[in-house]
């Protein structure tokens, strides 16, 4: 049985639902993570090497297999310890610390007070080209 299959296009057995394998590779998330910012351990993740707790509400995330550049894409989700409207938060990459091919530094702030807060669940997903 083949352990490596080289093919340009996938279709179902009826010949429908064609997709180029470039979309399989390009359209797959290369890293994702769910972790509690009160610590530096993962709940679940793909291709995540480590977390660094820089300060309250500010964590760096390092991927195991590097991206080909620092131009990849990320997006967020998350949950505070209490799930009502006053516990909404905003997340972004820290503006004055540029992402690298392996590390991004993320900031979470309380939406109302803009104070730094640790999210109980910080969810980040990364799309892009691997090195």
């Amino acid at each position, binding site marked *: 049985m083949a352990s490596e299959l080289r093919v340009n296009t996938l279709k179902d057995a009826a010949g429908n639902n064609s997709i180029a394998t470039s979309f399989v590779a390009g359209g797959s998330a290369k890293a*994702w993570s769910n972790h509690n910012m009160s610590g530096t351990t993962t709940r679940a993740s793909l291709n995540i090497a480590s977390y660094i707790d820089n300060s309250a509400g500010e964590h760096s995330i390092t991927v195991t297999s590097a991206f080909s550049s620092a131009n990849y894409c990320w997006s967020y*989700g998350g949950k505070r310890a209490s*799930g009502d409207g006053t516990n909404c938060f905003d997340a972004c990459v820290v503006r004055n610390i540029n992402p690298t091919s392996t590390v991004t530094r993320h900031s979470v702030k309380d939406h109302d007070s803009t104070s730094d807060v640790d999210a109980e669940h910080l969810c980040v997903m990364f799309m892009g080209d691997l090195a």
Partner: protein
Amino acid sequence: MASLLKVDSLTGVTTAGSISVTGEGNSTTTNLQQGLAKVWVHYNGDSGHTIQDSFNVTSVADGGVGRGTVSIANDMANDDYTLQYTDSCPDTPAINGLYIHTFLTGAYSLASVNNSGSYTDGLNVCSTVFGDLA
């Protein structure tokens, strides 16, 4: 060399649920199953939570103003999955926050809030889940 493969399902040889895909740099590999979104949905938060398009979703329930619960068709293995979301907002009041209310293996709920921290309906609520299927 095959240029077209017709198949209805893909299964790993060594481990059924694990297939490696070579990345764009032609050397590093990534895991096919782990990199695939397991759930995604776009629904209208202001009109009965009507699903516009979705994958692996059975329904979106209206949990009250600004709140919706997405029911997952094929459940996740646990509630540790990662979930990203975004929303568009009506002109008034502006939605400045969207957050996860609950994580469950078979559902998750999102809430949209305005500047005052009050629940308010979004227009186009989009979310995506990555993690392990049950």
